[in-house]
């Protein structure tokens, strides 16, 4: 196994950037599809950090964690798309702010 040619700090910086991009997307976009996509980016940012750390210490843990995240993301997308269909059917829109009836 060859040593990592990219320094860990670069990997983590990329992951953090990706995470912030995803977070901004979640906060700014109102369309539920874009929300889900942004969530995927955030999950992948976390996965990238795991991979980088696993490569840095030469263990398989990081890759196992990434597979778990992949499974989680698949499940999340399935549920999220189900919610998206329900939102479209009930409210006729994909705007998440329209679904704010449960306010204090």
């Amino acid at each position, binding site marked *: 196994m060859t040593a990592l040619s990219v320094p860990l700090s670069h990997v983590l910086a990329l992951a953090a950037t990706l995470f912030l991009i995803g977070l901004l997307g*979640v*906060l700014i976009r109102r369309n539920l599809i874009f929300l889900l996509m942004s969530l995927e980016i955030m999950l992948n940012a976390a996965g990238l950090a795991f991979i980088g750390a696993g490569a840095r210490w030469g263990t398989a843990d990081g890759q196992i964690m990434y597979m778990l995240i992949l499974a989680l993301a698949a499940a999340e997308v399935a549920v999220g798309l189900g919610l998206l269909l329900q939102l479209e059917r009930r409210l006729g829109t994909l705007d*998440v*702010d329209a*679904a*704010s009836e*449960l*306010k*204090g």
Partner: protein
Amino acid sequence: MSVGLLWLIPMLPLLGFLALAATEGRLGERAVAVIGAGSVGLAALLAVPVTVGFFELPADTGFSQTLWVWLDVAGFRPAFTLYLDGLSLVMLWVITGVGFLIHLYATGYMSGDPGYSRFFAYMNLFVFAMLMLVLGNDLLVLYLGWEGVGLCSYLLIGFFQQDPANGYAARKAFVVTRIGDTAMALGLFLLFRELGTLEIQPLLGAATAAWPEGSATLTLAALLLLGGAVGKSAQLPLQTWLPDAMAGPTPVSALIHAATMVTAGVYLIARLHDLYLLAPVAQTAVALTGLATLFIAAFAALVQTDVKRILAYSTMSQIGYMFFALGVGAWSAAVFHLMTHAFFKALLFLSAGSLILALHHEQEVTRMGGLWRRLPWPFAGMLVGSAALAALPFTSGYFSKDAILLTAFDAPGGFWLWSVALLAALVTALYSVRLLVLVFFGQPRWQQSGREPRDRGGIAMRLPLAALSLLAIGGGWFGLSPVAAVLPDGGVGHGHGGWVMWATSATPLLGVLLGLLLFQRWGAVVARLGTSGGTRAVRRFWLSGWGFDWLYRQLIERPFVALARINRNDVVDRVFAALAGGALGVNGLLSATQTGRLRWYLANMAGGLALVLLIVLGVL
């Protein structure tokens, strides 16, 4: 041993009460009458073998019968022990004998009332409680009976519950006597703390051994117990409830508010006479309370216009004589007067009941008059009862009241005590004559009602009148020898002789003559006096019972209501209101953050996370 039947005597009325209470008024009137009056009648019958058995016992001993132990806590073992001695024997006879006659009368009087069964249930419960009061060998059992009769008194004063005024009178009686009862409870606590027992005979022995004469603790305890007696017996200053208690049915007034319950205070002091002998201050207080009450109540009775209120004030006055007798050391005479008073006052009340019934529930003497020919039974009863009340020679009241007055003459300061009591005796004769004249003689004033008076008494109502008339005349010939063994003065004394005796005996006669002159011959003049000038003010003052109700309203009721009004928004409530307000405010703030907008939640979450991260990293 036939005296062993004693426990059955209180049990029978209790069973009667339980039977009547359990059937909830589903029984017919006849069955209720048999149970209600029969249970008390059987108890009275059982008193005969018990009395015979009692006299077979060696002289000067009491008979006690332990039924069961009530509590057993750390050496405190009050037991349901019945104790029979001369004093409780006399009370036993008064309660069961007079009680039965009144129950019998009530079977006729209450006929047709929707609460017939309820009435007899309460009455039986009352008889049971009263018997426990006089037979209890432990002050705790006595207190049980004491509160029991208070409860029954409350229930029966407010018996006609359709009228809120009756409920008010009942509450007034309950609350006012409760003040006295609280004092009595404190007295019992004090005695128990000092002596460690509430059983009467050991307690009296321990008190005599523990305290010298005039001890402050003992005096305090005796005064506190006097407070209880004053409340129950409607003496100054807790007397205001008795006139209002006349809201109850007339047999109740006869049984509870004349013959038995209101004399419980007299019984209590006579029973605990050893304490009062050791506390001369308390005994003097008893005498002065009685003297003040008998005097004030006699004048109040002189101007009342409601026939039952006249009798109520008269009762108050006669119990004042009993307290007075206890205070001056005429112990036996007090109990003697208690007994004769039970006879003649029950007779007066029952006659008044017949009268009221005959006049279609008219109680104002100003709307009676000239009735003696139409209502011979009430007339005869009232005539005999009034003669005994006024203490005309050789009636029962004569013997007991003269014994009191003559013994009082020999007490310290006796001449003045005697004079005041004798003046009140004169007034007693006056108001007795006034009552008779206004009701039975003179011009008939009942025609306005447009209804003929009709004597509705059946045999059940006439028999008690006849029996009580005989007792009211002849009751004075009963010797009270059993009491002599219990009370320290060794029986009813004959007191002072000579001119004092003649003056004492002649005063009631003088009062009757004066009364006939005032109310029969010069009736119009007296009536005019009552409606004009200064005498009118005096009349109204006496009519209100010397203004005690007014005084208490000003001194207690008004300030209390004012305080309550000031504190309507309770100070303590403010604290809780502030707490509730604060909680509501915070709730408003927090609920404002719940916008229902997903992205807003997320932003908060991210912000919070960043904050935590910065703190963990030590940047902040």
